[in-house]
């Protein structure tokens, strides 16, 4: 078992779980699914900096130290925070839809006739 395999397979499993949940019929599982997908995407982006253990990008003074790639980390850091904002907005929209529409189904219903009535 290599670390790379563990991380890659974890990304795959998180993605699959996210997609499976996104394909459900109700809003709440879909929101859970987007959270899973966010995890997967964040780890994937992070992993593009290549994995390394025990070399955080915090400078240690003069000397020959190894540091991991800080750029993906910075990107993912903001992505995590923005991911929270996105989850919150989607959740709020789902909630508002449920409260005003009376159901939390994802697919639009064939209720044009009801609307007219």
């Amino acid at each position, binding site marked *: 078992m*290599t*670390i*790379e395999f*563990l*991380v*890659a*397979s*974890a990304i*795959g*499993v998180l*993605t*699959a*779980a996210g997609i499976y*949940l996104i*394909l*459900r019929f109700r809003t*709440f*599982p879909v*929101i859970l699914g987007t*959270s899973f997908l966010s*995890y997967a995407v964040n*780890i*994937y982006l*992070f*992993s593009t*900096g*290549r*994995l*390394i*253990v*025990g070399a*955080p*990008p*915090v*400078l240690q003074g003069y000397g020959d130290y190894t*540091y*991991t*790639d*800080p*750029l993906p*980390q*910075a990107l*993912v850091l*903001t992505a995590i*925070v923005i*991911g*929270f904002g*996105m*989850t*919150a*907005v989607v959740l*709020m*929209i789902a*909630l*508002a839809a449920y*409260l*005003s529409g009376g159901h939390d189904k*994802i*697919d*639009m219903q064939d209720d044009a006739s009801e609307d007219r009535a």
Partner: protein
Amino acid sequence: MSLFLIAALPFIGALLPGLMIQAGRNTCSTWTGIISLSALIGLLVHAPAVLRGEVITASVDWMPALGLNASFYLDGLGLLFGTLILGIGCLIILYARFYLSSKDPMGNFYTYLLLFQGAMVGIVLSDNILLLLVFWELTSLSSFLLIGYWKHLPEGRQGARMALTVTGMGGLALIGGMLMLGNIAGTYELTELLEKRDLIQADPLYVPALLLILLGAFTKSAQFPFHFWLPRAMAAPTPVSAYLHSATMVKAGLFLMARLYPVMSGTAEWFWIVTLAGLITMVLGALIGIFQNDLKGLLAYSTVSHLGLITMLLGFSTEAAVIGAVFHIINHATFKASLFMTAGIVDHEAHTRDITRLGGLRHLMPITFIISAVASLSMAGIPPFNGFLSKEMMLEAAAHTYLGDNHWLVPALATLGALFSVAYSFRLLIHTWFGPVRDDYPHKPHDPPFGMWLSPAFLAILVVMIGLFSQAVVGGLVDATAASVMGNGAHPHAHLKLWHGVTPALYMSGIAVLGGLVLLALYRPASGIWHAVPRPDAKVIFDAIVGAVSSAAAWITETLHDGKLTRYAAIFFVFTVVVSWHAFSGGQGVSLPREPMQADIIPIIGWFALIVGTGVTVFYHRHRLLALVVLGIIGVIISLSFNYLSAPDLALTQLSVEVVTIVLLLLALNFLPEFTPRESSTARKARDLIIAGGVGVAVAALAYTVMLTDFAMPSIAEYHLANSHDLGGGDNVVNVILVDFRGFDTFGEITVLGIAALIIYGVTEGLLGSKVRQSLLERVPNHPVAGDEHPLMMVVATRLLLPIAIMVGVYIFLRGHNDPGGGFVAGLVVAIALLMQYMASGYDWADKRQRYPYHATIASGVIIAAITGIGAFFNNMPFLTSDYGYFQFPPLQKFELATAMGFDLGVFLAVVGAVMLTLESLSRLAYRRGDVPDEYPMDINPSRQPKSEDH
């Protein structure tokens, strides 16, 4: 005046009429006129140089990577068109002042007109063809506004739509053609492109490019079979018809053909397509024009016919024909604009444009009659007016043109076109102005005020002057224009004069005048025949095509977008995997050069927990609370993984975001059903599992490959690592990237986060303002409320924790620049600490003690970040360049202060505000009827004095 300014003036000026209309209609039109006139003067200042053969240029690199530059140039052709556009524009502005009634919104009109004028000037001055295309589309859009100016008239709206559809479609074709042309030539600058005739004509893409460009030009210039939109556009106010549909916009197509003439003309394809389209349009337009009863309809078809004439001349591709075309552009603009304006005057005075209801007006409106007569005779090609000269040149050129081996067809059809032209011109003249004065006009006509006939009169004088002294008045301009149309260093010389001796053209002209008069004498029987013969109605065909296209579009849309969002998502995922597979299988195979790291037992345990947790969440996802709890565990594992893999900042952020996300989801779950019903069939589940599994495997493979492959090029991380300390003044490179190197991104991020919070606040407000509020108040919770809403222990603990948590937040914030931490994490930590107060002590109690509205916190965060960024300007550095220094105040140790800290403070405040506003909004939905505001933080408090009535 700089070409930039000439092109920009109408656009800048377009703001003025809307403002000036407040000061009255005269002020409004005066200012509009001043704008146009200044631009015209600015243009004419260059005239002497251009007439000497110089080319004026002005250029700024805009997007050089795309080949898109703001470059302008002025040669003879540009000067001719610029003068027409701005000169006639001034006359039209004057005319429109008197034409528009007091009910018409004049500010709008002049704004649209100036926008259009700017777009036209842009077309004729553009050096870059991409820039030209932008202006080209702007003319279509602004003319749409102008044609549909009378919004209350259905024919105005329909005409505007039709014009936009046809010219817009042509515009799309033109974009394609121009891009091909630029691609062939390797440059998008006209001045360079026009030198590459041989290269372009030898390219296999020449014919497709030609066809697309001609499609654009023909639709714009109403050439057969796209001629039908122009007469329908006559629903526009007459100043618009006179300006757009005779003098300027419809000539944009001609301009384009003339502009590209040096590289596109001279081939068999050019000759056949352009000549035939022009010839057919000329004859057909003139024929239909004879039988129009609407004055403007007649003039519209006449315009179509004359545009055809010019197109045909450009198709001939000889020097004499080009000179004729250029000369006729001038002549047509003068007499046709004048005729449109007099038609507008007749309509304005007599309240009708129907020729059958007019007649005898020469006694009532003598001034208008003289103007109209001069222009009509010029249109008919009667000497000594200018129309005669260019028509002679056309006939002369036609007499020498062979269509294949046929030597008589072109001259015969040209004569026929001229004959029809004489017929409708004289019909206009005689049926409107001659004959007895009638007593059944809808309104008793008389000559309009001076301002209204001044513009057409000026043009009529030009008609006469150009006719009589052609060489002196426009000879130089025609030479310069023809030279730039011909290109390739040609020096054509026009010998403009009235009398050319007895030539074939004179015979043809004579036949045309006599034949036209005979036809007019036989107007009644001819009209009977014309109306008896069935003809295809362009509007019916157009509507049928548009109807078919839109119902096909509706069918496709409704079939694909049936409202089943899960289906869209499934299609998207499958498609993505298929495309990725295609790309992957077409690759060169993968080698994995990097050495993988062996995992010891701890990561394997973490991985195992993650996989199990994910499986449990998916399997039990219908039990929403359980799924949420496990989701939180997964988040914690991911946070630990980040820490393990050298990303302490990410670990901190992930952990704190996880907390607020779970709290948020829990709050929402309060209002949502507790369980998700079983709805998926087994087949559906299997299908979804296959899709999800497929994508998962693909993503895993991709991630694995990426991790074990070396960077394709050196990472810019080296720069960040090397300069973080010296330039950014910080040792935590991630934080320095966030607040310094990529500070602008972060600035965007916190703004977006703030906007997200405001959206949530807005949705909450909307919900609470709607009838949903009632059902929220009456809501029955899923479970009975716990007896002790605010447990004593929790209240005390959170109260104790608050200062400690804030201290931790400050610590994390301060160390952020050099150690893991920073504004994001600190903001989240403090937000969680505040959140705990709400949870423990109740919303009302906590809210009462909260002095700063969260909106303001977000705003102050963004503003502080911006001010810090702007501060760099005082340091003579670009936005967000940070500065730092080391300070020592005894007894403290030496410490560092960086301006980036101010930026990080902004991040901190924005994050606190956004998180708190989001959660606060959700909490506000929780009120139920009968809830008593929490006055006390704890339900039971031994220290509280029992109230007297409790005894």
